[in-house]
């Protein structure tokens, strides 16, 4: 994972939190969005598109373009720019289309 960021924070952060991104512990400023935190940490792409499989990174940073989709604490397709970081947050790349929970094989699990 590249660590050299293309972005420079305007002000030095006062406090920091640690998030887990793809198994890497990233120290990021408290109070920023996941998308901003990933860009500031040098993440170059954080999802792949469902149809073409192309790499994408956060773009509009205001909830419109959906390029920043990531999995957050196990929930797929969250908008990274609309979700603030918090200590211990588990973030994963959103690879392609949302996956459905696997179907239970017959007799393999309870109803529901």
């Amino acid at each position: 994972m590249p660590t050299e960021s293309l972005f420079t924070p305007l002000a030095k952060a006062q406090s920091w939190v640690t998030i887990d991104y793809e198994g890497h512990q990233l120290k990021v400023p408290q109070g920023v969005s996941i998308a901003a935190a990933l860009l500031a940490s040098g993440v170059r792409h954080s999802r792949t598109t469902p149809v073409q499989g192309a790499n994408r990174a956060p773009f509009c940073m205001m909830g419109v373009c959906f390029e920043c989709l990531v999995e957050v604490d196990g929930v797929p397709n969250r908008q990274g720019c609309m979700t603030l970081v918090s200590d211990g947050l588990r973030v994963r790349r959103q690879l392609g289309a949302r996956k459905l929970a696997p179907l239970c094989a017959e007799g393999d699990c309870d109803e529901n």
Partner: protein
Amino acid sequence: MHKSKTVVVGGGLLGMTIAYGLALKGQQVCVLDEGDSAFRASRGNFGLIWVQSKGYGMTPYAHWTRQAAALWPELAGKLLADTGINVHLRQNGGYQLCLSQAELTEEVHRLQWLESALGDYPFEVLEPNELQKRLPRIGPDVVGACFSPMDGHVNPLKLFSALHHACQARGVHVLHNYAVDGIEAFGNDFLITSNARELRCEQLILAAGLGNKTLGAHLGHDVPVAPSRGQILITERIEPFLDIPTSTVRQTDEGTVQLGDSAESVGFDDRTSTAVIADIADRAVRSFPCLANVNLVRAWGALRVMTPDGGPIYQELSHAPGAHLVSCHSGVTLAAMHALRLAPSIATGTALPELASFGLGRFSANAEVHHAH
């Protein structure tokens, strides 16, 4: 003054399909499209090529629909050859999911009526156990389903794009932002006033959806079409889970899921409403519980073009020979018939005998409304 052999009024799925069919016969065609402010019924389509239960109480419509489904591979092939666009035609059947015994009873009644009227009319009524085997993601609230191998679906965005490209390739002239203000018969020609211009043509196709009412009135005919609002919800793309469409939930080839099939009489109002969106979503989640936490990304309303009996209208206007009225709410299902049967019959002046059942004359007496997708 612009002069064409044929003018098609209406640049939606219906108008473009007929224009394509006429162009295939070598006709010089000009399409007048009202523009994006129009109530485009095409916007509301579900991409279904749907046969089951269509034409209940109206046998010719059932026959016409079945012929359309059978002819669809030929249309898809022509579009592919002309444009390279694969409209993703899949005709592996379709399900009507029933969430109550009353729904199932009504659906089965309609299919049995059609079976007795048409003879060969393949369908199956499925109990929950059998349904579960075929659609593993089905929910426990589904009490049964009807399956027919006659049904299918296409990608409607690719279809619309393919029609436009194919028409362009075959020399069809499409004028955008050309709402029609007036039409008069002028000798053997029609004189059309549109966008502050005058256009002349020998042959006129009225395929303007709900606008056909006003256009028909210009030529002295009462066209009984009225809006029926449908609302559509679109989910984010999810992994493939449903390769056979149902009438209310359909997954596209690119992963989005389309939810819909509401019908409301609310006049010329194509907005959405929270209550109906909630109903559609509730029905979808009861049908497929795996949709429960899936995000919706778009919702919109659109107006179907409904006739009093739900069937299409095909009529050469007696007060204006050379003018053909075409109205329907199944522009996708019937597309193959419109391009490959109706358009050639108009181009060659050879009336199709089966169209006799779809004229304006049938509305002189009151008829019950039958709506199916």
